[in-house]
């Protein structure tokens, strides 16, 4: 009787074994993505149809998550005021790695219709790394779903490396945060 045991043709090196394990890890990672939804703006209205029976996001293994420590994706939907951005950076830094950022709508790309507002930032990727942008004001639900599929593809091809960039260029990100926000620590009567 032929053995069902898998025997590789040649002995694998340690690097190859590590790579295989990462591939296995990435398979599970991209098929169980939990989202922390930072719904600040109007694009959040695209999420109910994406999650319910129309597009049923859960068949991709995606679901909402309540806390940053257990979430994989930080979903930024809509405009970000300075006040929100400060909390968003807090949230992003609390998430465990690997972590991915998906930005919905034109506001995180270039400010959108709020590009001339005194309180709204114009480029999100100055402050935290963004893996996938979904363009549109608002993006329709198909493109939102397409954005998530793109993210899965990026994880498979190992190009969703925003969280690594945040480590490598941390000084640059911190300086940008400080230039626009001042000190990033929150000082107000509710936090002291």
């Amino acid at each position, binding site marked *: 009787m032929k053995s069902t045991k898998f025997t590789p043709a040649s002995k694998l090196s340690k690097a190859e074994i590590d790579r295989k394990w990462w591939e296995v890890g990435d398979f599970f990672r991209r098929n169980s993505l939990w989202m922390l939804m930072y719904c600040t703006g109007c694009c959040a209205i695209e999420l109910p149809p994406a999650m319910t029976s129309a597009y049923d996001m859960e068949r991709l293994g995606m679901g909402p998550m309540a806390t940053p420590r257990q979430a994989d994706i930080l979903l930024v939907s809509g405009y970000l005021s*300075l*006040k929100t951005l*400060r909390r968003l950076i807090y949230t992003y830094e609390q998430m465990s790695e690997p972590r991915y950022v998906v930005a919905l709508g034109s506001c995180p*790309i*270039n*400010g959108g219709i709020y*590009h*001339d*507002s*005194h*309180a*709204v*930032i*114009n*480029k999100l990727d*100055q402050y935290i790394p963004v893996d996938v942008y979904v363009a549109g004001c608002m993006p329709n639900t198909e493109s939102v779903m397409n954005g998530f599929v793109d993210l899965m593809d990026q994880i498979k091809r190992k190009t969703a490396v925003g969280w690594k960039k945040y480590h490598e260029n941390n000084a640059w990100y911190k300086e*940008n945060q400080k230039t*626009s*926000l*001042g*000190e990033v620590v*929150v*000082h*107000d*009567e509710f936090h002291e």
Partner: protein
Amino acid sequence: MTNSMNNIEFVNDLVKGTVEVVKSEVIDKFQVSFEIKKNEVHLLLTKLKSAGWIQLSYLSAIDWLEENKFELIYILMNWEKPVYIQVRTKIDRENPVMDSILPIFGGAKYYEREAHEFFGIAFPGNPDYEKQLILEGWDDIPPLRKDFDPKAYSDKKFPQRDYPQDYSVKDPKESKQAKREARKQRAESLRGGKKQ
């Protein structure tokens, strides 16, 4: 007192018997506005509160740049006689000071802080009015004043996204605008032909 027109007459008599009204307007059958002098606001608000207008629904400010005035609007609501009363008063824009109405309406505390933050109006009598409420680390003139330019502030403070040249359509031959105009003109010429 179920008839709302009666209510408005009642309010008119009450206010005109108490203070000197500069301008008054009946907005609709549930809302009436009175413009009065700055130093009579507290008197009128006290009177209205004792007459049943116990709820301060809103306190806001308007910047009249050309008149060089700020206008403060106090909106009161009575749950027995359903009429909103707007009490309006104009204050100096250069040195905007208005005594706090905190002893009359405790709920004005946060409205006054907001007005101070967005317009720079001082409210002596309110212990917290200078505390930061909404804007964090603000470094310019109050943002809802008409002489504040949000676009210039945004350009100065936040980095803008640069787009590569080849993504913007600048070739007049490819202009969608011109094509659209031509299409519109042709459509109009056809329509004109049909009419005759």
